[in-house]
Each structure stands twice: as C-alpha cells, then as structure tokens.
C-alpha cells in the first residue's frame, strides 16, 4: 500500500516536472525542473532496490550534468524572447508521430505484461548495493567499463578542441 502511494507520488511529480521541462519559457526553469525529474527518478530507483544507481543519478546527473547546463545558460545570457519560440509548424506531424510511438510502446508493454503478470517478486530481487554492482562491474563488465574511459577522453578532447577554436581573423 505504502509502495503504491509513493510510486504514484513520485511518478506524478516526475511527469509533471518533465512536462514543465518541455513547455517552460525560461531555460533556467527547465533545467531546474529537470533537477526535480532526476530526484524523483532516484526515488523510483530506490523503490526498485537499485541503491547505487540512485546515488549515481543524484551525484552525476543532478550534480554534474545539470550544473554544466546551468553554466552554459548563464554564460550565454540570451534574450528570453528568442528562447521561447516553439516550432508550432511541426505540432501536427509531431503529434501524429508521437501518438503512433506511444501506442506502439503501450501495446508492447501490455503484450509483455500479459505473458507474465509482471509482479516484482521479492525473492529473486537483485541487491543494488554498491558491493553487488561493483562486483559485477569489475568482473563480468570489466572491459566495457574500461572502454568508457575512452569515450570520456574523446569527449574531453572534443570539448576542449571546440572550445579553443578561434574565430578566423578577418584580413
């Protein structure tokens, strides 16, 4: 019972905040709404017993990625009028496409839940503690884990190269 209450509470808050991310006029408010989405998602992860992932969500997403967004928005200091413009022209096409996509997703979900009743059994639940995840990460998934460092390195080099590029001097 308590589980259902918390699920609907956090999911409702998450979806409302996500809606606010998309339809807010000020990008600053959008980023802060995304922060709410991240925290509600972390709460859902805790309910799914993924404690380490929930901590990562707060530390990495809320702590690093969103701060980056905030820095850039404040650095650019754009006129709010230019930011508020929406692509009204694609509303109809986007709506149709989105309706189809959502219907497809829901059909797949209900088809899957019809096969097994989808109950989250407590017995076979994996423990999402740091120990369990770390054990798996450094044994079974060691090579992908090491390869992530290349992605991060490539991103760092790319960002620095892009950021250092000078506007070509006019002759």
């Amino acid at each position, binding site marked *: 019972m308590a589980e259902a209450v918390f699920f609907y509470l956090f999911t409702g808050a998450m979806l409302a905040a996500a809606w606010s*991310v*998309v339809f807010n006029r000020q990008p600053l408010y959008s980023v802060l709404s995304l922060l709410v989405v991240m925290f509600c998602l972390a709460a859902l992860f805790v309910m799914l017993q993924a404690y380490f992932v929930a901590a990562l969500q707060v530390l990495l997403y809320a702590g690093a990625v969103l701060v980056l*967004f905030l820095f850039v928005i404040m650095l650019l200091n754009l006129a709010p009028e230019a930011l508020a413009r929406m692509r009204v022209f694609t509303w109809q096409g986007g709506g149709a496409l989105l309706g189809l996509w*959502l219907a497809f997703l829901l059909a797949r979900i209900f088809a899957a839940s019809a096969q097994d009743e989808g109950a989250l059994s407590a017995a076979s639940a994996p423990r999402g503690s740091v120990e369990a995840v770390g054990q798996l990460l450094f044994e079974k998934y060691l090579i992908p884990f090491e390869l992530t460092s290349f992605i991060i390195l*490539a991103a760092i080099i790319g960002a620095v190269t892009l950021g250092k590029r000078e506007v070509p001097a006019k002759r």
Partner: protein
Amino acid sequence: MITLTHYLLASALLFAIGVVGVLTRRNVLMILLCIELMFNAANLAFVAYARALGDTGGQIIVFFIIAVAAAEVTVGLAITILLSRQFKTLNADEVSFLKW
C-alpha cells in the same frame, strides 16, 4: 500492488514527453535537455527490468548510459557555445549549413 507494467508505463510516458520536446522546441539547449529526459526514461526501464528479471546487469547498463550521456552533453554544450559565439543564434532551424 505496483508491477513492472507500472514502471514501464511511467518510462514510456517520460520518453514520449522527451520526444515532444525534441520535436517542438527550436532552441538547441532545450533539445539537449529533452534528450536527457529520454535517456532517463531508458534508465528507468532498464532498472525496472533488472528488478523484475533478477539480473543486476540492467543496473550496470544504466551506469554506462550515464557515462555516455555525460560525454554527449559535454560535446553538445561545447557546440552550443560555438553556435552562439559564431552565428549569434541558437535556433536549430537557422543552423542548416550542412543541408543542401
């Protein structure tokens, strides 16, 4: 009783909201934010399945997704700064020099 279906529905709705944002917003920054929303919807689905199938591997995938998302955001924001510095615009429709 909250089942796997509930979590998948929440994930699908979150993803759909992200798609709406990418399709309707013009600002490059807002498109990046909406891509983050879609990443998070995928994360939720992965964690829900990890719980339902009793396999911690789903949580490892989320770790990798977060790493890739961080890399994507770094490069994306660098490009955004370049756009505003050189072209004085963040409108995705105005930046179409690669189209013919």
